[in-house]
């Protein structure tokens, strides 16, 4: 019986399967293994001895490859990858080398291949669904960066200067096999974590991270001030927009109430609803004809109430509204109250804080007020409009009051400014101060002293909604808190009064020093205020100046006390916020033990002589970042040897490090907390959501970049920028991003896998559009990527003709059909090709120096050598078909030396092909299955974070089948993976499948 099966098996695997199939279950498996074992020893092993071992054995086997390791089938199972290489090379008649004898017969080669296939099926079936050995590992550099980005909200990239992570056999740098740690790396992680800590801000409510290090006062100022200014600039304060909106309301005939219409239009035009309502009411609901309001109303009446929908009408209305807005501003300026620059007693500088603040406050609280002097018809320099002067003189007191009220209402509705963004010194000529103030964001306008002043009452009262008001209050409070503004401002005051102002040079003031922290204590402020005010009172009678000085000390003391108590209160919140950070960093809830440990560490650091709350917070943060719970993928850790299902938080991490190369977000963690992730449908929903999320770029960059070997193109320096002046860093980055953007466009649309090879569209940005010669496409920003159809017109569409691959595989001043071809065959199609022998002749480095022969002729010479031809015949053709692209991937007809380039080649299957189209056609018709399988293997290997093992073949088969049955839709491949037993289970790596087999 066995003999019959064996004999049949050699010729016909199916029959073998049938024979086994006749037996049942375990018994059948037993028989099968016995048969395979015997067959190996009887027929396969002798062939290896006869043809391979004369070179590949002993102390220094050829190519450091010892075939005596394949002593029994189990050894083959555990070295499945290398064995496949053996098989491939024997099947392709590359081994033994052609110049060696004896050579095996075709039938003998066939024996090895057939046995291997049967063995593969048998083993894979036996070990079906083995999750494979995965063990815990550190995050790789990319995952560390992405995780820090998602933890802090800012892209610090602390591992930028780290050594490059080594890759595993499959080419991915995300597996325990290759990721090790060393003392040097630990030191680098400490540096990296300290860099993150340098970005940490302690806020009144917790912790936050700034986009740049915030270690000096100026850093913190910059951060806080910019946020306030950004807030201001986001607010709708353009008057012409409100006027135009009002006009739209008047033309609306949809039957809705005016209130409803106001709300809708405010929403459409992104205006403040409350301010629009106020402007509308002021201009359309009251009836005054006096003052600027009367003027505005008159002008608005000239606008047509009938909308014809034309662009011209809209434009005319807009331009008239802009004119009216200009009028408002001009009219408003005249009515602005004026406040004198205070001049203090002798010795007190005009730029002193109390004087400047007094005037600032007057202006800030009167931005909606009308100047009172001059609001009469009698005044010589009346501020009234000409008509109103006449009227004023004519009418009675009641009507006069109405006139004045009309002016006051105008000023109240249209403030002289909504907010003040920058300010020059407060005690110099107003025009000079405006010029000087450029860039002095939120500055209080002191002379030589730091200080900020908030002046945004009109914005606050008229434009902002209550939540926006709260946000603005919070931003200002944070400026005081984070940058410790009151303390620094007060310290500046003491210094200034002495060094510039010379107001406090008497001995009575000697006790106070700006350097002294104690100077800001309540008692010291009071003491200083006492002598200071005494001197002020002695030298001036001006109640305003006395009041300004009194207010100053009072306000500063209040602010500093408030800051102090806030600082005190915030410490607990900040620590709690750090615990939340730890939870997100660890990707799971903290244990009680961990909380206690972190707290006692914080307390310990705080007790160091030079430490304080801030340094304790920093060190705790650093300890969280370099903790194994953050640094290591604990979710891959196994306490059991048997395969078992991942727990919800483990699955959350596995999903996020697969699809984002980063940590899980709150939504994913919430799902895990609810225990939802055991549910297939819930996982599918998460996958769809995660693919839509921007973070999916992490997966695309890491997976594609490593699979197709362009991960480091961002720093590629192989292009001669003298020859190729158009190639700059921006283009280089665009090239590196193109496959990622293209892949994601296909993936998110759930397009076909085959589109990676061939399509008629491309996804490009401005830089690539220029490079590819694509006109007629408008890009709004440099960062924008767009799908553009008709790619074949530019010889693009699909991965093969992307600039990044064509450029990376060109050595500077010439193309390299060898490298390009090798990339196609090796990276894209997954063929295994041995490394070149050491004595390869050099090709000229530039096309300028090729001489009489073309590059292809030189290569042809090279292939004449049989030992070269074995490999070059497999890939040169693909590269030659891409010769229609120059060293930076532009279409060309001539090389740099001026020679015409030919783009034809003879394919490995003997047929002739021409150019890119020929290459695509060849791959699509002859090699599509190779491409698909290689893609699936690569994606699976990336997803699982390990080199594939034999039983994974079945999962790859399943992916291929599902792709076929589902119209080649790309998301199917992801779906099959995340639902697979391999992805959702884990087992300890201590015992491999083979060892386990032994144990059984």
């Amino acid at each position, binding site marked *: 019986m066995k003999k019959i099966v064996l004999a049949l098996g050699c010729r016909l695997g199916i029959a073998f399967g049938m024979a086994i199939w006749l037996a049942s279950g375990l018994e059948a498996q037993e028989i099968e293994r016995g048969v395979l074992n015997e067959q190996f020893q009887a027929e396969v092993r002798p062939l290896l001895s006869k043809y391979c071992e004369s070179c590949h054995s002993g102390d220094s086997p050829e190519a450091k490859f010892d075939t005596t390791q394949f002593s029994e089938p189990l050894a083959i199972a555990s070295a499945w990858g290398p064995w496949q290489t053996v098989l491939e090379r024997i099947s392709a008649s590359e081994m033994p080398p052609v110049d060696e004898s004896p050579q095996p017969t075709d039938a003998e080669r066939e024996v090895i291949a057939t046995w291997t296939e049967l063995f593969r099926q048998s083993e894979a079936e036996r070990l079906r669904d083995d999750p494979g050995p995965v063990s815990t590992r550190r995050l790789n550099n990319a995952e560390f960066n992405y995780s820090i980005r998602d933890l802090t909200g800012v892209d610090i990239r602390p591992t930028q200067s780290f050594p490059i992570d080594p890759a595993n056999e499959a080419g991915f740098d995300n597996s325990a096999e290759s990721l090790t740690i060393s003392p040097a790396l630990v030191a680098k992680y400490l540096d990296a974590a300290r860099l993150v800590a340098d970005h940490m801000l302690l806020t009144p409510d917790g912790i936050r991270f700034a986009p740049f290090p915030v270690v000096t006062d100026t850093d913190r100022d910059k951060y806080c001030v910019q946020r306030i200014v950004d807030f201001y600039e986001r607010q709708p304060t353009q008057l012409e927009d409100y006027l135009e909106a009002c006009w739209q309301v008047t033309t609306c005939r949809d039957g809705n109430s005016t209130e409803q219409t106001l709300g809708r239009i405010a929403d459409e035009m992104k205006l403040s609803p409350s301010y629009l309502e106020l402007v509308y009411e002021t201009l359309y609901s009251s009836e005054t004809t006096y003052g600027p309001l009367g003027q505005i109303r008159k002008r608005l009446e000239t606008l047509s109430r009938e909308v014809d929908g034309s662009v011209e009408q809209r434009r005319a209305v807009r331009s008239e509204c802009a004119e009216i807005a200009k009028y408002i501003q001009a009219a408003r300026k005249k009515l602005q109250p004026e406040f004198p620059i205070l001049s203090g007693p002798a010795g007190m500088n005009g730029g002193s804080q109390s004087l400047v603040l007094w005037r600032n406050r007057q202006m800030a609280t009167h931005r909606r007020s009308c100047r009172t002097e001059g609001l009469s018809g009698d005044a010589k320099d009346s501020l009234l409009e000409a008509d109103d002067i006449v009227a004023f003189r004519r009418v009675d007191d009641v009507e006069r009051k109405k006139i004045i009220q009309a002016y006051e209402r105008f000023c109240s509705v249209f403030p002289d400014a909504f907010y003040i963004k920058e300010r020059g010194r407060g005690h110099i000529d107003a025009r000079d101060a405006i010029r000087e103030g450029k860039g002095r964001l939120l500055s209080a306008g002191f002379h030589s002293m730091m200080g900020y002043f908030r002046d945004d009452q009109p914005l606050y009262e008229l434009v902002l909604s209550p939540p926006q008001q709260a946000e603005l209050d919070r931003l200002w409070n944070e400026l005081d808190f984070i940058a410790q503004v009151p303390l620094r401002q007060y310290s500046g005051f003491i210094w200034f009064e002495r060094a510039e102002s010379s107001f406090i*040079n008497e001995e009575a003031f000697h006790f106070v020093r700006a350097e002294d*922290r104690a100077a800001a204590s309540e008692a010291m402020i009071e003491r200083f205020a006492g002598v200071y005010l005494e001197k002020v009172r002695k030298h001036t009678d001006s109640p305003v100046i006395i009041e300004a000085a009194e207010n100053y000390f009072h306000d500063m003391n209040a602010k500093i006390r408030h800051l102090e108590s806030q600082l005190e209160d915030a410490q607990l919140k900040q620590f709690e916020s750090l615990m939340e950070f730890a939870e997100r960093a660890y990707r799971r809830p903290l244990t009680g033990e961990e909380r206690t440990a972190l707290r006692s*560490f914080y307390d310990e650091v705080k007790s160091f002589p030079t430490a304080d709350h801030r340094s304790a917070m920093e060190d705790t943060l650093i300890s969280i970042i370099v903790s194994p719970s953050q640094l290591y993928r604990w979710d891959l850790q196994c306490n059991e040897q048997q395969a078992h299902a991942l727990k919800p938080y483990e699955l959350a991490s596995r999903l996020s490090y697969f699809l984002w190369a980063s940590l899980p977000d709150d939504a994913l963690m919430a799902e895990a907390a609810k225990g939802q992730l055991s549910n297939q449908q819930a996982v599918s929903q998460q996958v769809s959501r995660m693919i839509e999320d921007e973070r999916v770029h992490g997966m695309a960059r890491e997976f594609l970049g490593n699979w197709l070997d362009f991960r480091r193109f961002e720093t590629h320096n192989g292009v001669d920028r003298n020859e190729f002046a158009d190639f700059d860093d921006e283009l280089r980055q665009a090239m590196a991003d193109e496959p990622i953007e293209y892949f994601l466009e296909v993936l998110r649309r759930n397009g076909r896998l085959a589109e990676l090879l061939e399509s008629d569209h491309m996804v490009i940005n401005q830089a690539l559009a220029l490079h590819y010669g694509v006109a007629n496409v408008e890009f709004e920003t440099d960062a924008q990527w767009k799908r553009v159809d008709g790619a074949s017109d530019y010889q693009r569409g699909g991965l093969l003709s992307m600039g990044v691959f064509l450029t990376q595989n060109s050595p500077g001043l010439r193309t390299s059909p060898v490298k390009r071809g090798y990339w196609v065959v090796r990276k894209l199609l997954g063929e295994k090709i041995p490394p070149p022998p050491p004595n390869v002749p050099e090709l000229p480095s530039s096309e300028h120096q090729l001489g009489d022969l073309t590059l292809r002729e030189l290569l042809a010479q090279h292939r004449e050598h049989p030992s070269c031809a074995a490999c070059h015949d497999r890939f040169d053709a693909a590269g030659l078909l891409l010769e229609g692209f120059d060293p930076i991937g532009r279409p060309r007809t001539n090389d740099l030396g001026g020679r015409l380039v030919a783009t034809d080649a003879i394919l490995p299957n003997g047929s002739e092909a021409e150019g890119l189209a020929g290459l695509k056609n060849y791959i699509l018709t002859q090699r599509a299955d190779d491409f698909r399988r290689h893609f699936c293997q690569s994606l699976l290997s990336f997803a699982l974070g390990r080199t594939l093992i034999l039983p994974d073949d079945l999962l790859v088969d399943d992916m291929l089948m599902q792709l076929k049955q589902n119209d080649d839709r790309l998301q199917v491949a992801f779906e099959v993976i995340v639902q697979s037993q391999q992805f959702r289970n884990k087992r*300890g*790596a201590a015992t491999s499948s083979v060892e386990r087999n032994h144990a059984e």
Partner: protein
Amino acid sequence: MQNKTRITKARAALSRREWLRGAGVLMGLPWLESMAVWGHAEEPAKANDTLHPFPQRFAVMFMACGVHPEHWWAKEKEGEMELGRCLQPLDPLKHKLNVIHGLFNKNATGVGIHPGQTGNILSGAALQKGAELRGGISVDQAMANAIGQEDIVPSLVLGCEQPTTGYHETNFSMAYSSHISWQNATSPVPMEVYPSLAFDSLFENRGTQRNKSILDRVMEDAERVRRQASASDQAKLEEYLTSIREVEKRIERQRSSVESAREAVVQDGKSLFKMERPENGLPEDIREHMRLMCDIIALAFQSNRTRVASLLLCRDISGLFYPFLHVGKPHHLASHDEMSDEWERVTTYYCSQVAYLAQKLDSMNEGDGTVLDHSCLMFVNNMWSGSKHDSTKVPLLTLGGLDRKLATGRVLDYSDRAEEERKLCSLYLSLMQRMGVDATTFGDAEEPLVEL
């Protein structure tokens, strides 16, 4: 109050840069050998052992707003240096003194007064006006980057007056008036004003104690995780633990080698400077304040904790005041009357501070010489004249022979030379090179100072 405001101050003591360097120490090996050599921890170096040179140190002391022009002079007379009235405190050390006239920073001229003349005093960089700070790295920090990596504290940055950041009327930030040490073009080095914290920073810095405690804590975590791990996971975690332990050991070795270096000084020199930890808080008297800061530099130099220091005795537009000198006006206002007797007393007082530190260093035996002999102590001012705000030449002194790399007892006058030959940065470049820094340019200088 005290505790709360410490946040910014302690931050100053423990700058990111110091940390980064501290951690950098963990990486390199040379420090181990180097420490042993400099501190002669294993075997005290022989006095004339040229294979074991002593560490070269560099310190800057800064005074602002000019000097008394008439009494700031030195001339050589029959091989002896004769000093003007302001320089009299340095008379006992004049054979170790160089008085250098006529140097300047081109970028500190023609830009208006004060901040633009100060923020680049040690960098020579062009400063940017407005809200964004931009200048250049200062010479002390460039030295620290190159040679301070191996030290416990790569550089000490001290001040006796707190920085401020408002806008000056020239539209330069007052931050330029407040800082002479800059870690890069955009960030000043946070300056320590409190003597107690400056003292502590010599002993408890991030490179050692705090790093070690972080690693201790992380080890606890790792042990906890490892207890539950399978064999292969244990192997992974063991690799991590071993790495952590190794880094800890390096920290330990670093600490002990510094300690033994200190020990060696005690046994060898009989001249160890003992210093008690200064009291918390700010000394009320500026004389006490300056003296303590000088003591800390002396201590740090002698015990090899650092080789680079800068001390801002006063800020530009300083508000320091000198009742003990019977000067009625604060520093800045007094400087406007530069020909006055008052200003002469102020200038002399600052020279006496330089003399104090120099004498302190000179009292510390080291090999066949003193710590001062192996150092260069530089005193520089941002202006020549306070009333004219003239920075076309600045007052400058050096003390110490930099381990025989710098001849002393000289009066050098560059006043009449071309601008190219009287750059401050050329002097800095010369000093860097003589301290073994591999630099061919610094700031705006591409050549070292001629005839130094």
